[in-house]
């Protein structure tokens, strides 16, 4: 039709451009995550340990990073080899950061400065979330994984709360966090694009 603007190569369909940008950002996001993981794991172990110790009396929890990806939970008041009681993979808690970074940088039609600002906020929220998951993991270990000691120190209600809280945070909300954050920051832009289309 005469007078109707023709679409240029840069104005393809919004989902198409999102997928293309995602493919472009995914590998750099993986590379940054792999490079940062050793430092981030140490930070998470330290922050999780501080939060756990702040909310217990006496403060006995120690978290040690082992072989880059694992964290060892220890209690100084328990016997055994240096109080070792449990081990889990810390990197599995935050690999979804790859998705967060790629999704936030791939949104088409948003100025670069705003995309990076939003990504900064999203990463800050993710860090807080990860510290909370580590804390719930430690409480889950204490309340359910130490046999007689757990039963002696935690009642059935507390065991269910810590176990179920860890389950919800470590599975659905961890996996959905990139999408929740993305929708929180870009839902309006997505809706505006749908109205224009």
């Amino acid at each position, binding site marked *: 039709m005469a007078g109707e603007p023709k679409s240029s190569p840069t104005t393809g*369909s*919004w*989902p198409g451009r*999102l*997928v293309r940008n*995602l493919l472009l950002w995914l590998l750099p996001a993986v590379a940054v995550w792999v490079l940062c993981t050793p430092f981030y794991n140490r930070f998470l172990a330290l922050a999780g340990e501080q939060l756990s110790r702040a909310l217990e009396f006496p403060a006995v929890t120690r978290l040690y990073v082992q072989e880059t990806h694992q964290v060892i939970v220890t209690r100084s008041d328990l016997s055994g080899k240096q109080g070792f009681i449990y081990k889990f*993979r810390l*990197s*599995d808690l935050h*690999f*979804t950061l*790859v*998705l967060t970074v*790629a*999704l936030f940088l791939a949104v088409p039609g948003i100025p670069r400065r705003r995309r990076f600002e939003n990504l900064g906020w999203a990463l800050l929220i993710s860090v807080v979330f990860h510290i909370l998951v580590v804390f719930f993991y430690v409480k889950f270990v204490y309340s359910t994984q130490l046999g007689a000691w757990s039963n002696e120190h935690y009642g059935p209600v507390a065991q269910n709360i810590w176990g*179920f809280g860890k*389950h*919800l945070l470590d*599975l*659905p*909300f961890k*996996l*959905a966090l*990139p*999408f*929740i954050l*993305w*929708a*929180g920051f870009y*839902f*309006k832009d*997505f*809706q505006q*694009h*749908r109205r224009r*289309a």
Partner: protein
Amino acid sequence: MRTPSPPPPAAPPASAWQRYRRELGFLIFFVLILGASFTLISWNPVNDRVIEPFTGAIARAGGATLNLLGQQTKMEGTVIRSSRFAVNIRNGCNGVEAMLIYFAAVLAFPASWKSRLMGVGLGFVAIQLVNLIRVVALFLTGVYLPKLFDSSHTVVWQTLVILSGVLLWVLWADRFAADPSRAPVEPQSS
């Protein structure tokens, strides 16, 4: 002499809720549906009667696909075994998490029920297809590149399955989700 009418009072500034009503509504519904659905599948009767048999079906489909690819696998419950590698398909490997995240996003999005049902049906098929590819690819990784199996299992394929759910939702919301609040425009008579 007529006195000039006072200017209309300025509209009160919109509250944060009014400004972000749609986003917040979507996110609150999404989180509630997600939490409720994961609570439901964590309940032992649902897990034993629905999730475990479903996981078994996924394992059988994976085993059958691998046999088509010449891997000569045998099934032992939810374990796919060959002479070179064995993998146990457990909760978490059945695509249910990605499906529930996708379903929660579809149901929370402002759209007609017909669009939502179509989205749920299409999403189920598409996500399970991606998950079947994941099971087959992970088994082959275990056979031919065993050192990469752990990172491929958790980091690579979980990311790809969740990403496929997110992209599927974007596609559904963009192309198929009819917004019930947008009534069709009546043609004007001249």
